Structures are given as structure tokens and as C-alpha cells.
């Protein structure tokens, strides 16, 4: 392939808008510009033709984003965008941090939207900046943040609970919920009342001897500041005192959500909504117990 055809092909390539060529490619595919060339080459390469090609050859092509050379341009572009906004609106009035956290799109959803796979650390960085932006009182920022919000899901879960078979109050305005912890299961009736708590028919203070067990049962009320507003009738079996009190607390949180779903963020922050999956660890062969080893003997 002679130089003429090479230049011709190059011009065709450069004319296409989306293609970015590195200067090295350009230079390597062309022979060095020298007067000798003009003499050696055919008559089609005229000085006029070279004039038209000149700007393409000498001007460096710049990538369209400053983060092109990072491994993840889309991610860094987003970070830059968010940082820019934060610094731009730094002087704007900001609202108070509320205990209810704004729900952002989850990692999987945001990754899909951006077209890249985000790592957890990357996602959490984005969320950090979104939380900062969330505090700014500016309409444009709020408009921008709508792209990232997950507002639709909360409504769905509330409706889901309300429409489910056991997610409503019965004819006597009681909620019946089940909670589990370790090997214990608790069925709890929750009804508006004066704060009477009975476990298997006995008062709370009589059933649980240890104060900490009583307090774990009551913890959902303490956290949501609804102490003394509900009566509790708990039927619990299996497990021991810790498991039973944890199961009752789990069932009470579920019951509270049926009575008032708005308490969910507070209960979630207090780690009461998740079912505690910690169970007794199994014994392993070669070990005395789950973790305990036999005495090490030198010989």
C-alpha cells in the first residue's frame, strides 16, 4: 500500500465524527512529511490537497471527557458532575438532616442505568455525594436528584403489606404477627391500650427474670416512643429467655408496622425489622466445639 492510498483512507476515517484517533496512530500511518516525499510521490498529492489534510494531521484530538483515560469514565464523570454541583451550591441554604434517610436507587438499578457495573465502594461514594446534595434547598438540584431517587418502592411495600392476608388489623383492631429468634417463636397480638404486656398469660416482669430480657421485649416501643400505647398479648414457645424475648421484639415490630407503617425507618435503623439469623454454630470435626480446639500437644 503506498502512501497515497494510506492518506486517502485516513482522510475517510477522520471524516467520520465519532471516531477518535490517537495522534500516534495518525503519525505512524503516515510517512514523514518532507519535501522528498513530494518529489517521490505521484502527482495526486498536490500542495493544495496537503493543505486540506494539514489540520487533521497536526491538531491533537482530545477525548470528549477528562476522565477518558481512567478505567471507568462513566463513573468518574458522574462523580465530577456531583462534586461540581456540591461546590456550586455550597453557599445555598441547607436543610436539617432528618432521621429518615432518603432512599436512593440501589446499586443494581443504578449500575444498569449508567450502563456500567458499580462496585459497592463506588456506589457508596456516589450515595455519599447524593446525600450531601439532598440537603441543598434548590429546585434545580431537586429536579436533578429525582433521577436517583427510589421513591416508588416504599409505597409498594406499604400497599403490599396492607393487601396481604395478615397485614391488616382484625375486627377487634388487633394485629397478629409472628416473630422468631434462635429457636423461639412468638405470636403476638398488639392492640391499642395502656401498656399491659403479658407473655404466656403472665406479666412481663414475672415471666422474664433478667431485666435485659424484659427490656429487649419493650425495645420496639422505646425506639418508636410508643411506650404505654399498646397492650401486648404474647404466646411464645421454644428456645430460652434470650431467644423468646428477641422473638417477641421481632413480632412487636411487625405488629407496629401493621398499626403504623411510618415507623418503619426508625425501626429499621434500630435493627429490629430484620430477623436475626444468628443461630448456634455447629460443631466441627477435629474441634472440641464450634470454635474451641483441643489442647495443642507439642509431640
Amino acid at each position: 500500500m503506498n502512501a497515497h492510498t494510506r492518506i486517502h483512507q485516513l482522510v475517510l476515517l477522520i471524516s467520520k465524527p465519532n471516531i477518535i484517533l490517537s495522534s500516534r496512530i495518525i503519525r505512524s500511518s503516515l510517512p514523514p512529511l518532507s519535501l522528498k516525499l513530494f518529489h517521490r510521490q505521484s502527482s495526486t498529492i498536490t500542495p493544495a490537497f496537503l493543505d486540506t489534510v494539514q489540520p487533521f494531521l497536526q491538531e491533537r484530538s482530545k477525548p470528549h471527557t477528562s476522565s477518558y483515560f481512567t478505567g471507568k469514565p462513566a463513573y468518574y464523570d458522574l462523580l465530577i458532575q456531583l462534586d461540581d454541583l456540591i461546590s456550586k451550591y455550597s453557599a445555598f441554604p441547607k436543610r436539617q438532616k432528618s432521621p429518615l434517610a432518603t432512599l436512593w436507587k440501589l446499586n443494581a438499578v443504578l449500575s444498569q442505568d449508567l450502563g456500567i457495573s458499580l462496585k459497592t465502594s463506588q456506589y457508596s461514594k456516589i450515595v455519599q455525594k447524593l446525600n450531601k446534595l439532598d440537603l441543598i434547598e434548590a429546585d434545580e438540584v431537586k429536579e436533578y436528584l429525582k433521577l436517583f431517587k427510589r421513591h416508588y418502592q416504599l409505597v409498594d411495600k406499604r400497599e403490599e403489606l396492607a393487601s396481604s392476608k395478615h397485614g391488616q388489623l382484625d375486627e377487634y383492631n388487633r394485629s397478629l404477627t409472628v416473630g422468631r429468634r434462635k429457636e423461639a417463636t412468638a405470636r403476638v397480638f398488639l392492640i391499642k391500650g395502656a401498656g399491659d404486656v403479658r407473655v404466656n398469660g403472665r406479666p412481663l416482669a414475672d415471666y422474664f427474670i433478667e431485666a435485659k430480657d424484659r427490656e429487649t421485649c419493650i425495645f420496639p416501643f422505646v425506639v418508636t416512643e410508643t411506650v404505654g400505647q399498646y397492650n401486648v398479648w404474647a404466646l411464645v414457645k421454644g428456645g430460652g429467655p434470650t431467644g423468646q424475648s428477641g422473638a417477641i421484639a421481632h413480632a412487636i415490630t411487625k405488629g407496629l408496622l401493621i398499626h403504623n407503617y411510618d415507623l418503619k425507618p426508625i425501626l429499621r435503623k434500630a435493627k429490629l425489622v430484620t430477623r436475626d439469623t444468628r443461630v448456634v454454630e455447629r460443631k466441627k470435626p477435629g474441634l472440641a466445639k464450634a470454635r474451641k480446639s483441643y489442647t495443642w500437644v507439642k509431640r
Partner: protein
Amino acid sequence: MSSARFRFLLNHKYLFDAKLINIQRTSFSTTIPALAKAQVKKEVKKKAPAFKQVRNEEKPKGKRSQSSNESSVGKSNPKFYKPKPIVEVEETKPGGLNVDVSGKVYTYPNDIMEKINVFGVPPIMSKEMKIFPKLSWIARDATLDLAKKLDGSKNKPSAETRIVLVGPLGVGKSSILLQIVGHALASDWIVIYIPSAIDLVNGKYAYVKLSSGDYVQPTLIAKILKQIHSVNRDKFAVQDSKTITDLIDRIKDPNTAQTALEQVLDKIDKSSMPVLLAIDEINALYATTEFTSPDHTLLEPGNLFLPRTLLEYISGQKKFRNGAVIGATSLVHKPTLSYALDAALHLTEVSPWKQVSPEIARYINKEVKSYRISEYSKNEAKALLDFYIRNNVVHEDAPTDESFTKKYMLSNGNARKFLEYCSKRL
């Protein structure tokens, strides 16, 4: 949403402010002169800390080094070591409790306090009361009810009014019994108060076996007679008082102890003043003692002279001309729990598999009535919480209605648990 569309929207919505169009960050470069101008950190010379010379004048010598309570309070954390405040509590008037409404905290006047201190207070109660400056109590419905019953039994023989206070652990049986004792003292009754019947049967006081087969505790009898005499001195005639002191002084061997007790009780009876025999931890008198016989079997309370005398009065075999016998059970010490007493008071089912020794069965009488003490009502608990707050016993900075409800819920109104939640737990 496709990723392309999302990215388009991102940029579109981001570009709402014209000034923000410049997406590319403005490059900055550090020039060499700029680097050169970088601030040189000044080395801050740290002065070596000189030793603080402890002057001899600061250290007080000898007895002056004893620090007073006031100075130690100031050094400790003021949040937890609060000084004991002077709390004014209403005193009961002479002539009885004179209390019509429950839910208020009272204390005794000094003369009655002295008398109670002669007898002593049940051991667990004394520990709990240490956090308060003076013995104070709350008038409960049970107090008023029992005070009325006591007043009603003034002119009846003691066999007609025999009550045992029962209830779950820590509900306030001993406290209410003490309130009744105070009422009787204020009403000018002769009071024989035994704060701990367990001490009579747990081997605390030495025992001697007599030839008649009886076991006597001379030191215990001497102690109790001294207490009775000291508290009820003004109720006896001068002659009687003298003979009683003589009898007490002469208790050196067990036989004289026996006769002394009998004669003192006889004198009390003959004075025909109303007598209150108040026994706390009464279930110990219906369980085996910790004394052994020569053939290493455990003795029953009926074998010991003083417990037997008390049992005779409780069962009605002996009686005072005027008066009452009131007891309170104690569930703290498990070995002294008595199935026999519980069955007699209908607190447990009668089981044919559980044996009751004939020695104990002899003193069980169906005419002894049980009086159940219930948990605090919300009003009583609230009044008590206010009292505790005034005494700087509660750790909370700003107690609210909700925190009170929480304490009440967690303790279920049980007196001891409620005090624990107020004073120890946050």
C-alpha cells in the same frame, strides 16, 4: 431506562445552570515558584514540662488529712454522686396513722422511730432503706385496710385476729407489716415485733437441751425480752417493770429463761392492754430449723421453746386478752419456704405426696387468714417516683410520663423491682 437515556438525562439535568456548562475541570498546575513559596513549618519548641514541686504545705499532716464528706462529693462526678438532699416528709400524728387517703409518703416521729430501731428492721429492707435519709413509707390501700382491722381488734382476744400477709416476691409484705407495727406503736398498743423469724431457727443463737426434752435459746430470749421491755416500758406498772428487769437480769441458765419468758408474757396479758404480735418471715416457723438433735436429725420449730411459744399464739392455742397476731411471709430464703403454710393458706394445691411432719401440722390452723398484698397501682407508683426524685435517687435528668410508664411496665408494679428500676437502672 436504558443506560444511554439515563446518561442523556444526567447531562441534560445537570446543565440547568449556564455557568455549569464547563464540564471539563479547569486544569491547575503547580509552578516551581509556587512550590518554593510553600510555607515552611515553623518548629514549635516545646518546653519540657517542669516537675511540679509538691510543697510540704499542701500536704496536711496527721489527723487533718481526713477529708470531710463535703470535699469528697465535690471531687466525684456530680452526675452520679449527688449529695443527699434534705427532703421534708410529713410525719404521722400521735394516736395512730390518721391517714385517710392512700398514695402519700409519710415518716414516723422520732419517738416511734426509736422504738422501731430497738426491734430492728428486716435485713433486706435495711439495705434498701440506706439510700434514703430517713425511714419513710407510702400509705397504700392495704395499710389503711389493715390499720382499720387492727383498730377493730382492740377489744377482742388475739385468737380472733390472726392474719398472714402473702404475695409474690418483693411486693411489700414486710414493709406493710412494719407500717402496721408503727401504727400500733402510735396507738399505744403493746408491741412484740420480730423482724426476722429466720434468725430464731437458723442457728444464729445458741441452744441448750433441757432434761425435759425442750430446747431453749437463752441469749435469744434475753434479747427479745429486753427489746419488749425497752419499747413497752411506759405501758407497764412500775412494779411490773421492775420484776421484768429482774427476770431479764437473772437469765443465766436456760430454765430461768423459760420461766422469764412465760412470766413476762403473763404480765403483758394481765395488763389487758391490746397486744400486737408481729412476726416477719413467719414461714420459717413452719419449716425445719437448722438445729440438730443429738441423733443428728433436724429439729422442728416446735421443739424450740421460743418458736413454739410463738406458734401457740399464731395457732390460737394461747391468746392475749386483747390484741392481734399478724405475720408476713418471706420468699427470699428458699429453705424456709413452707409447703405446710402455703397449703393451709390455700396458696398451693394440697398434694398427697408431700408430707407434713406432725410437729408442724399441730400448729396449723385453718382460722389463720391470708391477706394478699398486690402490686403498686399507677398512682402509688407515681407518688413514689416523685419521692425518689426528690431524694436524688433516680439517675434520670428529666423524668417524663413515658419513662415512668416504661418503669412501671418493666417492673409490673412490683415494689422491689420498681425501686430497682428507679434507682439502679437507666
